[in-house]
């Protein structure tokens, strides 16, 4: 909660100054660890590449249905920086297009599981000790009673394999973690004096939930989201590795690795470069997420 201004300065000016000041402070905390900046740069490059894929890749038509057996299995060279696959498609082009799908997957999964998890967690935290908490939290327990990858594989396997369905599969195993996080925060915030004061002042339930409790959970939720982007992409690549993600001929990193395995070790580039691409994208978001965590962490010395 923002502190009330104590100085007698004109309000508008001090508000701007405070905003600028806090922005500066945030950047300072984020950039204190040089690896966070590395992460930020990696994320920026990956996002830019993914958005501009049709313009920056050397052979955009290779991202779809394209076959040229004359150029198949070419090793990395000046024509094809990362070589070509069994259909003669440029691997660099396909990796860059696959970045877009991976990011879309992370966005889609978080866009659904974060609101579901936050709302259920808030409700359980506000009605802590009642049947509402029991119902919500026991359902959550059920969904995390099995490793997320197994649940995701299961859901993805019974549905038709598409990018949307694989997003749905990961979402099913992802939301409970946000419920747990929000619940643990909300149930302890519930007893803070400012929440009780608001209650005494006659504030409505919705006001207390969304204006008093939720803003104080936000930084933890954002931190988890920043760190989760990489993990969602990792799980997504595991699904597409067994053929349960985006379907060929559209590119998916996991599928590309799987396709390349049978060509090992002679045509190693077909599997190795997509695998490296997964590592780069997950590493970037991890470093970036660590920076966000440093930035949003409460000040302690």
């Amino acid at each position, binding site marked *: 909660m923002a502190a009330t201004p104590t100085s007698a300065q004109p309000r508008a000016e001090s508000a701007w100054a405070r905003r600028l000041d806090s922005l500066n402070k945030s950047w300072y905390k984020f950039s204190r660890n040089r690896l966070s900046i590395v992460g930020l740069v990696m994320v920026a490059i990956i996002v830019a590449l993914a958005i501009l894929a049709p313009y920056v890749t050397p052979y955009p038509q290779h991202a779809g249905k394209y076959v040229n057996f004359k150029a198949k299995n070419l090793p990395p060279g000046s024509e094809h920086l990362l070589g070509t696959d069994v259909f003669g498609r440029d691997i660099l082009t396909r990796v860059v297009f696959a970045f877009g799908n991976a990011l879309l997957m992370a966005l889609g999964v978080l866009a659904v599981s974060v609101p579901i998890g936050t709302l259920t967690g808030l409700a359980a935290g506000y009605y802590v000790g009642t049947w509402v908490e029991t119902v919500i939290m026991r*359902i959550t327990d059920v969904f995390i*009673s099995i490793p997320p990858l*197994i649940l995701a594989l299961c859901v993805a396997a*019974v549905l038709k394999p598409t990018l949307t369905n694989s997003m749905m599969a990961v979402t099913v195993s992802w939301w409970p973690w946000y419920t747990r996080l929000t619940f643990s925060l909300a149930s302890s915030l519930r007893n803070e004096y400012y929440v009780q004061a608001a209650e005494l002042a006659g504030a409505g339930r919705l006001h207390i939930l969304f204006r008093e409790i939720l803003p104080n959970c936000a930084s933890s939720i954002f931190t988890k989201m920043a760190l989760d982007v990489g993990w969602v992409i990792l799980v997504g*690549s*595991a699904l597409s590795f067994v053929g349960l993600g985006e379907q060929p001929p559209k590119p998916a990193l996991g599928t590309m690795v799987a396709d390349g*395995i049978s060509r090992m*070790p002679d045509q190693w580039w077909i599997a190795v470069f997509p695998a490296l691409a997964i590592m780069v994208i*997950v590493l970037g978001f991890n470093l970036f997420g660590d920076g966000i965590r440093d930035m949003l962490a409460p000040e302690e010395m």
Partner: protein
Amino acid sequence: MRLGPFILRRLALSVFVLFGLSIVIFIIARIVPGDPARMALGPRAPVEVVERLSKQMHLDRPLPEQYALWLWGVLHGDLGDSLFTRRPVLQDIVEFFPATLELVALTAIFIAVAGITLGALSARFANTWFDNLVRILSYLGIVTPGFAWAVIFMLIFGFVWKVFPTIGRLSEGLVAPPLVTGLMTVDSLIAGRPDLFWDALRHLILPAAALAMGPMSQAARITRSSMAENQNKDYIASMIAYGVPARVVTTKYLLKPSLIPTTTVMALDIAATFGMAFLVELIFNYPGLSRYGIQTMLNKDVNAIVGVVMMLGLVFVTINIVVDVIVAYLDPRIRLLGKRSA
């Protein structure tokens, strides 16, 4: 809170959770588009045969009734028949589970030994080249999916150097020892065949290492950070002031309490290994429950999916209880608090 009632409460909750999981997974397995009986028999099978199988599996009944019938079967030790192996699902699980258990057990040993050693050493030599090397390695370990490690290890140690075998549980031409526990390494020792033991162990090394890389890195990082945190506490300073040898301070007073957070995270990671094992077993063509599981999923073998998931849920829940008990035991604050209130 005393340990006895605590464990009882956890057990009761686990039974409830598994019951819930069975409902969830039953629903998921039954929303399969298309008729499972038709898929099992193939497009050429006559309609009457498909209908008979459908009836035999109760697929023609409403969902709640199907579930009740399934639950009744489970309580009698019957998980139904697999549509593809044409055998009872329970029999398949009993056959394939020990292989996965053996693999995950070796993975757990790798994770615990290597993770704690690396973490403790990098805390001991904090901010030296060794610490930095471990930090870089653990970042790599964490961001690389287990299936990618599997591919990398297979390439390096299986094809380029040919030090380890890359397929199955035993080399071709070797006969498996008589079945006792189902764990190939243990069975060959029981049979008094050290040669078979070595062969089986060598088959386990690459997949176990691939599975261990991520969790091991995580364990190293947490051990290091929690040791670094405890390093600045007053009791360590007083131990040093008393003249306790540095080695004893590090191992006894610094490492031991630092293992509490590591144990929790490590155990959950080990349990989650059963997930990545789905892919790694597939890559190494290792005949475990996970490879069986992924095949049943891809084949939409409904009874087997439910059976495998319930089995892994049972394992996961058990590991969670064990971890809670271990942590309660490791942490004297929890242990002694229990005695005082008792």
